[in-house]
């Protein structure tokens, strides 16, 4: 489904990604973790072309992301993405947030788009809030709406960039529950997150990044059991301390 091959990226002389290689098969859930600034967000943004990269290749569902001939907007409409800060559109009601891209990008008609939006809103447990505006919802609720918004596009896979790290602790679980459910239904997912409980529960593999490199890429049991690198061991020790 997603194939990342020798991808490197730099800002000027600063190397953000160095020779990153990994694959995500259909139905797999991959968790990406690593210290701040290690390039996790950059890597995941390369997958749907939000960040350009200088060398290597990324193939998503048979389409090359780096190819200048690829119509990126078309590809992105099929890859769902959820952001750390939700990024709902504050000037639109929840319903409009859910339907605008369906109408303007997929060309669905208004009724169809609204019906689909409502269905997914119900799924994330927020049907009652359909006519509110994003600013009137809590962070956890906003993030669930953001997941619903991505699902409205019938994505072939989903990318998550630290979806819970801007949330108060009591809201983290309501978002993780939605993600777990999604994973159990067989959605292909690539998640940057430090929620190790989530990784233990549903991840197929865990990728550990440091200084722009993929240091570990292993099954979750191998990763949690005995990380191969010293860096990953330290990282895990720190994160599991609390």
């Amino acid at each position, binding site marked *: 489904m997603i194939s990342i091959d020798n991808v490197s990226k730099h800002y000027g002389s600063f190397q953000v990604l160095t020779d990153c290689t990994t694959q995500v098969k259909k139905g797999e859930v991959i968790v990406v973790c690593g210290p701040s600034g290690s390039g996790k967000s950059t890597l995941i*943004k390369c997958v*749907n072309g*939000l960040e350009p990269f200088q060398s290597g290749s990324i193939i998503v569902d048979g389409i090359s992301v780096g190819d200048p001939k690829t119509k*990126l*907007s*078309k*590809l*992105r*409409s*099929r*890859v*769902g*993405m959820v*952001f*750390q*800060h939700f*990024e*709902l*559109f*504050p*000037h639109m009601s929840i319903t409009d947030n859910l339907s*605008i*891209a369906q109408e*303007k*990008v*997929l060309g669905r008609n208004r009724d169809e788009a609204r019906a689909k939006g409502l269905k997914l809103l119900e799924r994330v447990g927020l049907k009652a809030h359909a006519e*509110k*505006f*994003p*600013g*009137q*919802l809590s962070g956890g609720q906003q993030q669930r709406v953001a997941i619903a*918004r*991505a699902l409205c*596009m019938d994505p072939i896979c989903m990318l998550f960039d630290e979806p819970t790290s801007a949330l108060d602790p009591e809201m983290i679980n309501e978002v993780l529950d939605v993600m777990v459910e999604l994973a159990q239904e067989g959605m292909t997912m690539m998640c940057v997150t430090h929620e190790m409980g989530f990784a233990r529960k549903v991840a197929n593999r865990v990728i550990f990044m440091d200084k722009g490199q993929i240091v570990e890429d292993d099954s979750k049991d191998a990763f949690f059991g005995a990380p191969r690198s010293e860096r990953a061991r330290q990282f895990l020790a720190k994160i599991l301390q609390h």
Partner: protein
Amino acid sequence: MNYQWNWGIFLSPAASGDSTYLGWMLSGLQTTVLLSLSAWLIALALGSLMGVLRTVPNKWLSGLASAYVEIFRNIPLLVQLFIWYFVLPELLPASLGDAFKQKLDPVTQQFVSAMVCLGFFTSARVCEQVRSGINSLPRGQKNAGLALGFTLPQTYRHVLLPMAFRLVVPPLTSEFLNIFKNSAVCSTIGLLELAAQGRQLVDYTAQPYESFIAVTLLYVLINVVVMTLMRHLENKTRVPGYLGGK
């Protein structure tokens, strides 16, 4: 000082034409309002376009837009006005320039020059407001739009601009007020707008205080009306749960 106040002057018939001096004032007011509104349309359209260009990833386009802003911001309005009115018709290809100077009556010439001048002058300021509105949005908004499959123009159209415009209503209000005030500069090329009518009235009646007080009050009135309207607009475009909305 013994000044003879005479407020009745406004109702006495004007020295020329068949109206009263009050009629002069009102026609000046009308010109000021028409001129400012039409210039404002130019400023909004051009300024928004340039403001968007200043934020696009293409270096050439954003460079072009920033040169545009620098030119219109660093030359005094009066000089720009004289250049539009006196210089440009000379520099146009002869046929066009002559058409402007001979086919159009002088009042239209003055009005068109003044409108275009004020429009361009203000557009540079509108551009800066629109740009800072767009830049003040969280970076992730653009990515969120793109990630949903919007093209860059669609992202601007549906995601960035609607929000940016709401943010810039207050600063644009002050630019909108400025355009009315700046329109008074256009009296210098002979356009008979409000300030010019005021001066003309002084020349004809020798009652300077009444005239200037009336003109000043009319400008204050314009100010109050515009502010009320814009406050209305601001309330209407307020986003619930955001920026002091409820």
